[in-house]
């Protein structure tokens, strides 16, 4: 049996908005196995993105722990978390979040260059070919369509061959056909590079493409009535 690559234990996150405290995550125990494709669904504000950000080391929990590949993220400092994000996870955002000053090739290789590793140009070209953006590498993000930008963001997430791909509504800004293309490509590449895939989505069709679907409600894992 595959071992758990992601494990959260009583994970809670509270935000303070004015005088109010918003409970985004409330004691979440969650596990994802290696090479598993998990989709997370739930209503807006239920804590999906917060959970994904906790797993990706983008945010700090109020209480509880996040273990990724045997590492306790709560014990890491900012520098270590940056290294973790660069090497262990690949993020895909709904807004693509490409860096506007860099062309697509530089955007894709950005995490590798941050790490000072030699870029495997052949791999990048193959990745771009797989994602149908090989002819867009010299262009800047603002020159590309939404679907192309999202595929570039996927390429960036995969470039460092991370163990885990975290996608936060990657198809939120795409039409149905492009959405299925993107998820299909994600699934294919994740399988190809033996990666764990966690996708947040509102689209039940996409959720059904996953090995397992987890539903969040009011900051907790919904376990059914």
């Amino acid at each position: 049996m595959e071992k758990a690559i992601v494990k959260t234990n009583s994970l809670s996150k509270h935000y303070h908005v004015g005088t109010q405290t918003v409970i985004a995550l409330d004691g979440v125990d969650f596990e994802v196995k290696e090479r598993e494709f998990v989709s997370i669904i739930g209503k807006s504000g239920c804590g999906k993105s917060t959970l994904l950000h906790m797993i990706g080391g983008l945010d700090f929990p109020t209480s509880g722990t996040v273990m990724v590949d045997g590492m306790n993220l709560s014990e890491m400092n900012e520098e270590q978390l940056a290294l973790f994000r660069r090497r262990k996870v690949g993020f895909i955002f709904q807004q693509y979040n490409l860096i506007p000053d860099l062309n697509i090739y530089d955007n894709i290789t950005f995490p590798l260059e941050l790490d000072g590793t030699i870029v495997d140009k052949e791999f990048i070209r193959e990745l771009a070919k797989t994602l149908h953006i090989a002819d867009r590498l010299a262009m800047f993000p603002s020159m590309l369509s939404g679907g192309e930008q999202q595929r570039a963001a996927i390429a960036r997430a995969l470039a460092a061959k991370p163990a885990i791909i975290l996608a936060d509504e990657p198809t939120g800004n795409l039409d149905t056909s492009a959405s299925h293309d993107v998820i299909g490509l994600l699934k294919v590449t994740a399988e190809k590079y033996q990666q764990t895939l966690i996708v947040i989505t509102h689209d039940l069709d996409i959720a059904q493409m996953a090995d397992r679907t987890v539903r969040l409600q009011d900051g907790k894992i919904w376990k059914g009535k």
Partner: protein
Amino acid sequence: MEGKVILMLANNNRSVINKLAGNTVRTNKRQFSILFLTILLSSFMLFSIFTIGLTYLDLSRLQNTRLYGSEYDIAVMNGFTEDQREILISYAGIKSVGVLAYCGNVKSSDSDRSVYAGFLWGDKTYWESQKAPAVTEMKGHYPKARNELLATKEVLEACGKSSLSVGGHLSVTYEDHTGIHTMDFVISGIWKGYGGDKANFYVSKDFYEQTGCDLESDGILQVKFKSNYVTGKTIEKLKESLGLSLTQVFQASEYIEKSLTILFAVLGLCFIICLSAYLLIYNILYLSVSGKIRYYGLLQTLGMTKKQLVRLIREQILLVGMAGTTAGILLGVSVSLILVPYVVKMLGISLGNMGLCFYPEVLALSILVTTAAILCGVRKPVHIAAGVTPVEAVKYRENVVTPRTGKRRRGSLYRRMAEAQLKNNKKKTVVVFLSLAMSLIVFFSLTTLIDSQGRRTVYPNYWDADFIVHNSTQTAEDITSLRSAIDDAFLSDIQKTEGVAEVHAVKGIPVTFPYEESGFSDFWIKGCTELKPYLTYADTVSEYQHNPGKYYGMIKGIDESEFDYLNESLGGIIDKQEFLSGKTAVLQYAGFEISQEWIGSSISFSIPTEHSAAHFPAGRGNSFAVLPGIGNQKQEITVGAVSYGDYYGATVNFGANLIVSETYLESLTSKPYVLSLNIKYKQSYDAETEKKIKNIVKANPCHNDLLSVSKYDDMKTIQDSQSGMFEMGIIISLLLLLVGMLNYVNTMANSMQNRKLTFSIMESVGMSKKQIKRLLIHEGILYAGGSVFITLTVGTGITWFIFQSMNYMKIPFTIPVFPLLCAILSVMILCVLTPVVTYKKTVRNRSVTERLREYE
């Protein structure tokens, strides 16, 4: 079916827009504070710089007045006619026409047998209008009666009567155009102030009229224009209108001749300052409005028309602009009219009669430029905001500029990203470069100008000596008058003084030139009698033949180093070996034209012996001894050149002065008099060495017969006349630099606000804060490098141009390396640190998620 048309009916929505504009500004204080600060700094800069700048210009003119001794723009010398004076008085652009005349020189007083001082007479306009700005204190009154003198402490000291006060009596022997007279005078007044006339007495009109002097041949007309800026054409026209004779000299001051160029240079500087203010406001306005495009898009989505949106943005900017301008002006008033005078007072700097005062035109200009900058600067961003559709607005990102080429850049990641940041937002980059460079350029120009003003303190004295001591025992007609006021012990004390690098002595002995008809002595008599109207050629020749000692000259020996300097000043025309061996001498100019026929000619002289030891008091006069076989024997030497320098002291004798080599002099006398000492310090203007030298001079028993010239004292005098001008200039330069730097901080703070999302994205994909800081340091270095490059290239050109335009003193152009280096270093440190610090402040302790959420 007919299509429906929605009609826009006029309604009063001004109040809702006003309310919205006010609310937006109140609730977005943080974002609008940067715009507010920029406008505040710009109006503050304009107000303070122009207020202090105007005072600086006034001080600069006051310095000229003090250096020249009175306030005038044009002098008509060598006499004038009453008609010419009338023409000048009736000339519309002229403020005052004063009359000044030299009318005699003091030869001795009842306390000092050798005095170097002159008699001057000035009319009421001269004294009360033109001289007044250079007079700081006046006791008593200008001479009215014939026997009254107006003195300074300096001239009284020269007469050996420093204790005299107003009403005191002084007996002097003086020479005028009618002859040599002795008269008892009453001191009618004592004045303190500035000018070369401090070594002279002012006399009454009655006294002047009986000196034999004539305004038509000796008078000077001093003309002051109403305006400080006059064209060359006006000066030329004025000159032509006077119909000057061949002997009259029309001399415009260097300042007034260059005044129009100076005005243009000042206006050029003002333009750069205004442009710099405009660029800063424009840049921040652009960044400020484009940073709120999403919000404006939202308003459009809710039904706001483009027209209403434009009005809203304008009202927001107007509110912030009014507040910023008011605050800036108030800050300017506090700094320039309260803080700066306070600091100046605390530092003990005298501004003389000048003070920083409120100029309404400066206030108007500051408001005008700031308002114009806001109105012009707001047009483009408003156009962008109104042109973006609501959907585009949601996706709008300020720093997304589609590059023309997708070509991949080479170099390290940080360098590529930093370059991309600068290249992709060229407008912002150019504005930042220009605003920083302009601050540096204005600083560069001002420090160069101020530094050149400072360098006016260096008087071009002979050989740039730090201290010169002259033996002033000599009188004009007595060949036995010279005393050994500078002896070996004194010379040795000076040489041994710590801090003294070199001491060069000019030595000499009196000589007589035998009368030869049509010979050298005859030529000399003709020249001298032209200068002294009371002497007739025939009588002088007759007396000369009977008593040549009365018309004695001097032979002065200089060392090899001094010869090298002298020869260089003469253009190297003298053969060194011939000079050193005593074949050639240099003839010293005495005030009349020396014909070229004497260059290369041999002249005779002899050293009388009969007057020697008997005339001198014991122990003081016996230093002069003629070598055996020399006394009263005819000697010959060839004139190699004429020196027009007035350094070689003791020039009161009627006869000629011959400069020869020290070796040659020693072949004539075993022990000559030391006439002057030329002292050079290891460190120029060294106060400690100066003090020691002055103490040695004071301790000399003959100190009353020593005349000292100190470069240190000259520097102090001129520094005093500058009246805090230097400090004012430094304050302006520093203010400008500070404002430029603050504006860079402001621009960067705004830029960081607008790039928050990009940084968050970078962090989300694994860039550490340390790496972001490295990237920002790279950007800072590029900004600093670019600005410094512009400053050192274009800036040097601009500075040179401004300097030359204002350089009426003909001072060589020198870059003030130290202040410029300090400014460049400060700018570099600031450029590197600002992005890092502002990034840190922008990020605070919020997680990447929190920061990313702001944009969702």
